[in-house]
């Protein structure tokens, strides 16, 4: 169900993409201006993995980012719980 062509979507969304990217850059600058190291924090690792995932050339980026920020699922959880 694609309502528009990709160039039309880019035309419509370009300023929003630009705005969100600049917001993101400013957010990371804000963290950098704080005292002390932060890049070893597990949350920082998730942020960096997410930035790398954004540059992928295929769709599914939102799902990929949500997976990066998710705990893993263990299919044997019922055994772990003795259920």
């Amino acid at each position, binding site marked *: 169900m*694609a309502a528009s062509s990709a160039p039309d979507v880019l035309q419509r969304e370009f300023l929003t993409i630009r705005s969100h990217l600049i917001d993101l850059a400013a957010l990371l600058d804000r963290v950098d201006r704080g005292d002390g190291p932060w890049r070893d924090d597990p949350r920082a690792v998730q942020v960096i993995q997410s930035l790398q995932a954004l540059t992928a050339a295929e769709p599914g980026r*939102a799902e990929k980012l*949500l997976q990066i920020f*998710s705990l893993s*699922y263990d*299919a044997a*959880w019922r055994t772990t*719980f003795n*259920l």
Partner: protein
Amino acid sequence: MEFFDPHIHIASRTTDDLATMAMMGCRVVGEPAFWMGYDRSGANSFYDYFRQLTEWEPKRCAPYGLRHYCWLGINAKEAENVAFAREVIALLPEFLSRPNVLGIGEIGLHKCTRNEVATLQALIDLAMQHQQQMLFHTPHLEDKYKGTRMILDLLRADRRVSPARVCIDHCEEHTIRLALDEGYWAGITLYPTTKATPQRAVDMVEMYGPERILVNSSADWGPSDPTAVAKFMLAMRQRKHSDALIRRIVYDNPRQFCGQSANYREP
């Protein structure tokens, strides 16, 4: 255009909000029982809350032309104390035949513990014994994927459960396919910073189609927006989706899902 917000915590909203929603076209609301922001001190507190959802909130909504339905249960955040949860679950049967009760909800997992699972199994069993529909809360943030998979494992293991009578709520891009592929309804919650935005909800409709999709505000006492469904409708229109498609998602779909409850009446 008329719409139905199938998940909103009316007890946490002002009458100004109800008037705004009505002016935007809202005609029906569904209010699941949930955590009030603090743990209740006893089962009687739940008893009063169930009375509020079945007696008082419908009266508060009526002057604005809003038909009020609710779901009853104990939320995952208060499910860790299994003995306490069983006291609350024992209160539920007397309320299930009240005229605005659609089923058991919102129930689910929060931190995905063994005790939460035990309470959830008891709630699913109660729902099945009373032929009730179910509305599932899926966990927040990093727990969502794991918790959604565990909820689906529990439901799949119970042969009495009909997926068409179950909504897996608060789906996002990494969980919506899991719910839809197994025949469940998938709720998309529109929140300012967590869950989904109206734009991402439109993306999911474009990716998966309108079938068995519900869009809701889940507006409560925290940062949330009772006009979120109207904002989704605007986002759909801005992307040139038809009025028929928008109406299907925001009005026909929730009526179809909730219409499976014995207590549901068309507005």
